[in-house]
């Protein structure tokens, strides 16, 4: 398969993720859509890595996985914290973190 196929697929997934982030209200789903975007990036990275024939893109993808894991952990921690404190779980009403 040509690399362009992978790149277009990656772009498509990225856009779905972006649309999700923009339209959904639940922070849980917003986080999930962020994951989608990160994964789209991963796919592009690996496709390009394959295109160039060296493995460096894969390293970046691996680092992205790590970053995503961290982001999820912190994001979910915040959500659980909000849930415990009975704050509204809705990104539009989340303003408790404002200084």
């Amino acid at each position, binding site marked *: 398969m040509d690399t362009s196929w992978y790149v277009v697929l990656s772009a498509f997934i990225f856009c779905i993720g972006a649309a999700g982030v923009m339209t959904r209200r639940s922070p849980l789903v917003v986080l999930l859509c962020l994951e989608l975007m990160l994964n789209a990036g991963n796919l592009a990275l690996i496709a390009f890595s394959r295109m160039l024939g060296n493995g460096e893109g894969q390293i970046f993808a691996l680092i992205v996985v790590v970053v995503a894991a961290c982001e999820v952990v912190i994001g979910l921690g915040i959500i659980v914290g909000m*849930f415990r404190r009975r704050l*509204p779980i809705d990104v539009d009403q989340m303003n408790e973190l404002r200084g």
Partner: protein
Amino acid sequence: MTDGGLDTPGESQSGARRTDGPAALLPPYREREESISLGTLDEQPVSGTEVDIDGGPDRETELMTINLGPHHPATHGVLRLLCTLEGEVVRDIKPLIGYVHTGIEKSCEDQEYWKAITFVERMDYLAYYFNAQVYCMSVETLLEEEVPPRAQYLRVIHMELNRIASHLFWLGTAALDIGAITMLWWALRERDLMLDLFEMSSGQRLHTRYFQVGGVFEDIPPGWEAKCRRALEVMPARLDQYEALLDENEIWLQRMKNTGIVAREELLALGVTGPLLRATGEPWDLRKAMPYSSYGDFQFRIPVGTVGDNYDRYRVRLAEIRESLKIVEQALDGLPEGPFITSNRKVALPPRHELATSMEALIHHFKLVTEGFRVPPGEAYSAIESPRGELGCYVLADGSAKPSRVHMRDPSFVNLQSLKAMGENSLIADFIACIAMLDPILGGIDR
């Protein structure tokens, strides 16, 4: 899923809506459930309730109510426990009972005294000899009837064998609840030794109705004593096997030690007796404290625990089996000769051979079988030490041939109240272990 599912029998019977059947039952059943006020649980939030953002319960403690039972592998019968869980921790326990209430006490009022024995034996179905014994004791008190010594000894032998059988069954099921599946089969194997003996002496393995008012039903057959001694011989080795399987097992010790501790004072206040109480170090055993039957004749010790955790409860019961073996052995050694039932023909059936020769015997037999014996008015409460604690029996006689009231103070029923104290704020697994160590017999609880 309509309400009307029940009003249209054809539909629910057709099988076409089989999956919908239970759902159709839901609304009325739920209404019934709600009629049970849950007391302290009322105020507490239950998971699945509406998320109330502005007020409502604090979510730091997320609670979930589950029904442990009426049909649950760990409840040893149809015991229903309404448990409130916080994660894996049991925060509140509410026993709901009555699912096998069969009205035995009421049924006894319609039976002659000697026929009621059959009924009371069905209460605590693992300790049937004890039920019969305590009932007979109460009736004998009212009749002021002396029981011949041989009958007393036979009663003690059978009761102690029954205690062993009961404890063995408890051991098997309790270990099963902890996850040691092999223990159940080993314990049942030895229990069968006891049941074989019962079968030989009375013809039945369960609910033998061997004890009679005034003595026992029949003398033990020849060969019974030898068979009993053989059983006694193998038991200590088998008990060693159990201990090898359980006591040398680190997981078992970890699961048992320091779980379900209840202080002695609290147990006394809750009316708990039996091994549960002795596990805390209180040597209260009616066989020693207030000897009945012929227990005063035997040398045995009362095993007691130290801290009153589940491990002590387990050890106490196991040690009790060994003591019971000693009692049976002594009773067999000292088994007196003589009649096995009182010679009072007003109470006990005449021997079979007399019927052919004696007119009086025939009359007595006829009177007893048709209308039973009359008991002078009065009331009596007697208590014995059953495998689960003090088993009391209150009999109210109004002068007729049928008891006016028979009440059994069943130890399972009273001990069940301590479940909350034992299991509260412990993990589910420990709570299950507590139920197992409580050894509740639902036939005794619900009667």
